[in-house]
């Protein structure tokens, strides 16, 4: 598959995940599980951006790990505060 097609597929996935985020958030009252679902979608989007748009998929492991650790830490941090508040 050409690089352009891969990027288009990535953009389509990002749009789908973004719409899914809003739909999921309106699915019911915010529980830690619902918050985890919403944040998992955000994590998926961050992963797509880092791996495909920023071209880290086949890049140096160290940098890929470093960059991907940021959305993971943010997600866990936010989720932790939501879970602690319940």
């Amino acid at each position: 598959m050409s690089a352009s097609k891969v990027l288009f597929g990535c953009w389509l996935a990002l749009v789908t995940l973004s719409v899914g985020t809003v739909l999921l958030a309106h699915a019911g009252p915010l529980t830690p599980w619902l918050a985890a679902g919403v944040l998992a979608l955000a994590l998926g989007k961050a992963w797509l951006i880092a791996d495909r748009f920023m071209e880290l998929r086949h890049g140096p492991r160290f940098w890929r790990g470093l960059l991907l650790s940021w959305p993971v830490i943010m997600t866990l941090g936010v989720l932790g505060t939501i879970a602690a508040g319940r």
Partner: protein
Amino acid sequence: MSTSVERTGTRALPGDLAMWFFILAELAVFGILILAFAVTQWLQPELFRAGRAVLDSSMGLALTLSLLTSGFFAALAVEQVRRGRAQGGAILLLAALLSACGYVVLKLQEYAHLAGLGYGLEHDTFFTLYWILTGFHFLHVLLGMVILAWMAERCRRRAYEPHACSGLESGVLYWHMVDLVWVLLFPLVYVLG
């Protein structure tokens, strides 16, 4: 310092190594702000629930889609330049800029709406953090747009070569970093209410 020859058994890191360090520094700053927002939300859940109710999640979605589309065009522009199609790259960078303009117009509308309703920086803790967090990100968007415009002009003048476009890669990486931060800001600020 270019990393185009730096190999670690896999593909080389695109762009300039200095840009990657800059991105890490930026992510650290945004990380502190995001965690500050989350912790304050934990301490004042009712206030944040009320504040978030004022925001429109469909506006947040529109902002997200305009930024993601802009990032997509910017990524395509790099591909075009690598294939020796500098003019195509310039057009795609302008498309990225246009999409980013959509973000700016929408965001300014939202800011004007909130300010008109009296939800300014000093209204309450939620809106103080909202304005600081989204305002700081907005400034990054504006800087990114200047970079996109400058790179489009350089592309038009064929300043980038297929195997010597580290500057273009670095500028586009910065733009993707702005995207990356927003995909976490969007649920935190607009959705998790």
